[in-house]
Structure formats: C-alpha cells, structure tokens
C-alpha cells in the first residue's frame, strides 16, 4: 500500500512569481573568461609546476649571455673532461673527484687548475664549460621550437580552417597538396636544404616550416568539418555573420583544445628533430651547441664520463615532459565546461 504523509493544510503556502527568480539563480561566482582560465590553470598543481619550470628554463635561455658562467665555445684543452664541482662543498658527484688510472683523485688538482676554479657541470673533451653549453644549447632548441609553433599557427591553422570550411573542390586541391608534402620525409627535405644553404639553424627551420604544419592542418580540417554543421554556426550564419568572423569567434575558440594539444606535440617534436639532426651530424655545426650536439658528444664518452650526457638528457626530458603536462592543463583551463 502506498502511504501518503498527513500534512496539515496550513503548512502549504502559495508561491509567488518572484520565487521563480530564486529558482533560476546560479550559485557559482561569475568571472571574466581570462580570470576563469587563470583560476582553472592555477588550481591544477601539475600544470602550475610545469609552467614554473618552463618559465625558469625560458628565462635562463633568454638571458643566457648574463647567466652563463663561461663562454660556451671557449676551449681550454688542459681542463678537458673535468668532472662537476660545486665550490669546495663535498657533495658526491659534484666534488671534482674522478677515477683516473684506477684511483680516485681530485681531477682539478691533477690538471693544475688554480684554487677556486669550478665547473658546475664539468667540462667536455675540449675543456668547454658544460653548463654554459647547455644553457646556450637550450636556447637554440627553444628557438627551433617556437619557430615550429609559429609555422603551425600561421600556416597550418588557417590552411586547415579554409580547407574544412570551404569543402568541395577547394578542399580536394588543398588536401592533395598536403599529401604531396607529407609524402616527402623530413630528413630528405633537410638534406636537400643543405645543398642550397649551409647546415645550420636556417636549414633546419626552413625544413620544419615546409613540412611541420601538415599535421596541424589535417587535424584542424577534420574538426572544422565537424564544427561547421553545429547549430550555433548555423545560427551565426542565419544572423548574417561573415565567414571570417565565424572563424575567429566560433571556430578558433572551439578548436582551441586541438590547437593546444597539437602545439604541445609540435614543441617537443621540433626540439627532438633538431636534436636528432645534430646528433647524426647534419644539424647545428660546431662549435655551436644545441641539446642534440651535446647529447651526441656526451654519448661518445658515456661509459667513462657519464655526467657529460646526463645533464643535457635531463634538461631535454624536463622540457618535453613539462610542455606535455602544461599542454594538458591549458586545454582543461580553456574549456569552461571542465570540472575544477
């Protein structure tokens, strides 16, 4: 049997129309879009840590000439292969001690360096300061990464939007161009570039500019195809919004998660591509350092002088992991609907 509670009549009260207003109230505070983005980003601890780490790395590489303790290309052959040393502190691994001829000796004393000579991360086989080389190398790698990102955004994004939005014949032509470009391996483009240009930053950047935006364009095109059938886009069209405005007001904000994720792939990819080219010897020419050349040099001596490879490898790993995690955080932060 169903039971109905006995509630006396006087407990009921007519509601007034004003009460409806109360019902429609929404509890959370209202903020501007950017405030929202910042709040969500900062509430994500992992992303915040990554952002701080990346900012430090970026700042150090921007101010490399001031920060670097030595000239990165200055050779002092007599100081070759010195181990890391931090002042006079006796920290294992950073005290200047090194195994030579089966005995652990103070390498700095052995080479006759004056007291007070320290190389925080040691020196390489030509006696160049490793820390300074890493700082300059990071700077170069970041330049490559930023240029690759710009190319993605300046060429890839509009290309994808136009291809997806126009559809039909325009799309077919644009997609065939992309297929041709993506069918040529990057490496071949770089090698061809070196026939015209000298090996160096310019040829790497041009190779990236020619080929790297393809993935971005493809992803954006696919997303645009989906978005353009959305009813809010149709609504904008029935209101008479121009295509350019629809792209900037409706498409790009809704593409932002794809853009951010793809950018966060592009940055480590570009850094790694440069590192790879330098590693196999067709990248940045000597004596300039990049993370790739440092890894390449370090790898040769890894069995005896592991610190020469550890340091650049750690920096490279930190940059890659931090960009990826920050990218995740940014994607969530830009989405008003993500839970916080």
């Amino acid at each position, binding site marked *: 049997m169903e039971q109905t509670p006995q509630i006396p009549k006087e407990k009921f009260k007519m509601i007034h129309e004003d009460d409806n207003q109360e019902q429609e*109230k929404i509890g959370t505070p209202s903020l501007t879009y950017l405030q929202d983005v910042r709040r969500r980003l900062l509430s994500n601890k992992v992303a915040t840590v990554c952002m701080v780490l990346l900012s430090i790395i970026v700042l150090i590489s921007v101010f490399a000439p001031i920060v670097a303790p030595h000239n990165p290309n200055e050779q002092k052959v007599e100081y070759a292969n010195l181990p890391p040393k931090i002042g006079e502190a006796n920290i294992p691994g950073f005290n200047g001690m090194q195994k030579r001829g089966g005995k652990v000796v103070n390498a700095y004393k052995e080479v006759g360096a004056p007291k007070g000579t320290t190389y925080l991360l040691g020196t390489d086989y030509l006696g160049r300061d490793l820390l300074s080389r890493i700082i300059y190398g990071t700077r170069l790698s970041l330049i490559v990464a930023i240029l690759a990102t710009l190319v993605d955004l300046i060429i890839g994004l509009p290309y994808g939007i136009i291809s997806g939005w126009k559809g039909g014949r325009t799309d077919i032509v644009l997609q065939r161009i992309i297929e041709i470009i993506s069918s040529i391996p990057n490496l071949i483009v770089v090698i061809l570039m070196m026939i015209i240009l000298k090996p160096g930053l310019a040829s790497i950047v041009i190779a990236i500019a020619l080929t790297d935006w393809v993935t971005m364009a493809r992803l954006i095109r696919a997303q645009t195809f989906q978005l353009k059938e959305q009813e809010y886009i149709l609504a904008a069209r029935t209101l008479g919004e121009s295509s350019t405005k629809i792209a900037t007001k409706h498409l790009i904000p809704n593409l932002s998660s794809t853009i951010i994720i793809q950018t966060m792939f592009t940055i480590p990819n570009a850094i790694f591509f440069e590192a790879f080219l330098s590693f196999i010897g067709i990248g940045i020419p000597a004596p300039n350092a990049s993370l790739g050349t440092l890894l390449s040099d370090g790898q040769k001596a890894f069995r005896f002088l592991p610190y020469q490879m550890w340091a650049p490898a750690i920096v490279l790993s930190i940059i890659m992991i931090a960009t990826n995690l920050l990218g995740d955080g940014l994607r969530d932060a830009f989405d*008003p609907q993500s839970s916080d």
Partner: protein
Amino acid sequence: MADEKTPIVQVKHLKQYFNIGKPNEVKAVDDVTFDIYPGETFGLVGESGSGKSTTGRSIIRLYNPTSGQILFKGQDISKLKNRSPKMKQFRRDMQMIFQDPYASLNPRMKVKDIIAEGLDIHGLVKNDDEREKRIKELLGMVHLNPEHMTRYPYEFSGGQRQRIGIARALAVDPQFIIADEPISALDVSIQAQVVNLLQDIQKQQGLTYMFIAHDLSMVKYISDRIAVMYHGKIVELADADEIYSHPLHAYTQSLLSAIPVPDPEVEKTRKRIDFDHSKHFTDNQTLQEVLPGHFLYCDDATAAKFKN
C-alpha cells in the same frame, strides 16, 4: 482564416537536391509549394527524413535552393547574393530557432555575447551601455534572470538554453521565425513552457512562425495551418482542425492513427493504419486544392471527386 491577406512567405516549386548528378543524389525537397500568411503559425510535420528541416533551412537560405522561388514579402530571396545589402536585411527579418539547445549555443561564449551576436553584426546598438540594456531586455522577454548574462551555456538547463536561443533570434527584431523542432529535445514539462513563451512573444510582437515538428499533438496545439510532408513532398495542407478531423491523404490518416492517447480504454482498441508507399504515389499527382483551403497531393480524377 487569412485567405484575403497577402502571404508573407510564398514558396513556389522549391527543389533542394544534394549531390546532384552523383549516384548518391538526394531529393530532400522535391517541388514544394505553399504560402504562409502574416501572423499565423504554419506547422510542418512529417517523419524523420521527410525534408521538413531542409525546407526550413532552404527558406532561410542556409542552403542554396536547386530551383524554385522563395518570395519573402514579395521579393525573391532564393537568389540573393551572400553579401548584398538586401541579404543583410533579410538576415534580420527572418530568424531561426534550432532543435538542439545543447548544440545551438557556442559553449565558449557567454550568454550576453551569444544574444548580442545579431546586435553586433547589424550594428543595432551604439555603445556598450545600450548593448547591455538591450540584452537585459531580451533576457526579460524570455523570462531569464538578467544576472545570467555573464554565464556560460553549460550552466543552464535545456529549457533555459532554448530560451537563450529564442532571445538570440529576437535580438534582430525579425518578422518571421522558423522554429526547427524547438521542443523535441526538451523534457515534456519544459516543452509547454517554451511553446507558451513562443506564443506569448508571437502575440506581443505580431510574429509569423513556421513550426517544424514531428510531435503531432504539439503541432495541433500551436499551429493555425498544418502541412504534412512525406518524401520531400507536401501531401496535405489544411487548417489544423481540418487536418485532424478530416484527413484526406492516406499518409496523414496513418500518421494520425499513430498518436497515442492517454486513456487505456482507447489505447486497447486503437488501430494503426498502415501506409503503403507504392499504392499511393503515381507520377501524375500534384498538390491541388480539393476543398476550400484544403490541399491534397493527388491526381486530377481524385481531386474532381472531392470537388463535387
């Protein structure tokens, strides 16, 4: 009811084909003719894929019609160029309310910017104060709290979102609104709320509606005249009551027989009338007026029978 008035919208032999000349050619709308009079609500019903939404979208020029004429206030708008001044005016006069309140609002925009989109495009407000004032006015019109204008769509319920969509359409002072299944995605209790709101606004502003739906009882409630669409064609067109009391076309009869009745006794005995496509369609049929104000898609012989 409105026979003596001049129609606000005249659709003449509208055809909307897709993938023309390819194996997958679709005749979504195939030679459709009807008039809509000022102040009325014109209901368009039909099953999924019958072309009713496409008809609406062709009329508002989201598609370029394959052939035929669409006269709006006597002017053919089917061939207007996209950036011409006439097109711009047309974009103000005719507006649309969309089906899915979850897809029809840009999730990255605030409610105030969604509503003000039309105001901004057509330069209807001079400064931010005026813009704000107008947004508040529009929110009031659809019974939403003006404080909500700085919110994002996801913070609202389906009914509230649909009302935001209505406010966006009203922002440009349209005369004719195409409502493309505006309530089919809503909860039943909210459907009544939105439909009543639409009717109130119609009375206040003297709007004309074209109401696309597949919910027959709701269409009967809101419409003055109803057209039944099937396979891209209008098979019957008459006053709402006439359609429900004297359905002439076999398809309309079949449709009406499918409406469930909230009464177990009636439901027990209710018989669905089957509809066999091949029996009722031949090549020589057209839409013709068989009784005053009652149009039927049939051949001349059948029409003659009714006229006598």
